């Protein structure tokens, strides 16, 4: 449960919040093609990489506790 909470919190934290600001701008023109800018791209990349790192760490920790 703790691990799940940790993952959920991280996912929420990692959601590129800048996208929300963009959606406000795009609301006037719903049919407009949307795109991410560089900073959002970096946020999303960081989030994905952090998630991989956290999952890897938890797997390593679980394996360590099983061996003990």
């Amino acid at each position, binding site marked *: 449960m703790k691990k799940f909470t940790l993952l959920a919190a991280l996912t929420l934290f990692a959601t590129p919040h800048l996208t929300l600001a963009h959606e406000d701008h795009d609301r006037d023109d719903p049919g407009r093609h949307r795109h991410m800018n560089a900073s959002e*791209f*970096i946020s999303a*990349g*960081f989030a*994905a*990489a*952090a998630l*991989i*790192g*956290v999952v*890897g*760490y938890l797997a*390593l*920790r679980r394996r*360590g506790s099983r061996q003990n």
Partner: protein
Amino acid sequence: MCFSLALSNIVEKLRVPRFFVWTLLLALAAAVADQFVVPALFSTAPLCALLACLVLATRSHGDALTSLPSPSAPYPVAWRVLGFFAAHAALIWIVYRLDASVSRASGALNGVGWAFLLVKFAVLAPMLVLLPWRTWRYLARTYAAEFAAAAVVLVTFFPRRVMEALWPVYGQFVGRCVHLLGWPLVSNLGYVKALYPTLTGPSLDVTILLSCSGINGIELFDALFALVVFCEWPRLNKRRTLAAYFIGVVAMTLGNILRITSFVVLGNHGFADFIARFHVNAGWLFFSLVFLFFLSSTYRWMLTPSPANRPA
């Protein structure tokens, strides 16, 4: 009112001397307030350092409570708190009185900018007034590892400024290393020396920008390593953990050189479009894999207790 009651309840339950928690919380609140009043003082490093110290102290074994040299007041004494706020007011006044050009140097990479960084760190100094010197010595002995971790956070976390300052030299180092590693694998690989060096190949030229410095990888490493340290703190061998942090930073730096080399090599062997389109995402994936490799190599080593703490 409800918030302060809830905060008091939380502090009561922590296995840390209450005066220490209140001291850190007061220092944190005052540092935040300073930055609101004088935006030129903005820096996340002192805030992160105080938070790291507080969080890690609460994660330590809690034997500090039983080894207190004498009964201490649960809160810092009133006149000390007044002195603490007076010191903060003096700091704010000094920064206000500084010439506007000096305040504008906040974040600049010249001598004034670095000097102003020390002023930003000075928001931590008034904290010393809150407790007697004897108590600080006791805390330094009891929470030596936590203070050391906070110091590491203060000077190394979010190292963008250091990277920008070192870039003229470091950029050339990265460029030369990539050229050296890629040269046997890419025919006619050239090197254009500039502030942002370029590696010229038959199909793809790669310019190494500041954002390719590996700073993102180091920031990712900082965040993930901090998570591991927070979760494992009571079990960690503190000396090895400190060593592992610096080994990890070096590993991410070397990993970044390998990452750029792989882009140069693959980009000049038929994958130019793919590299141009996906190098940012591939970079993040690469950094997370380097971190996992680093962690799987050092995890058990960091958890091994030092001979002094090993059970007989």
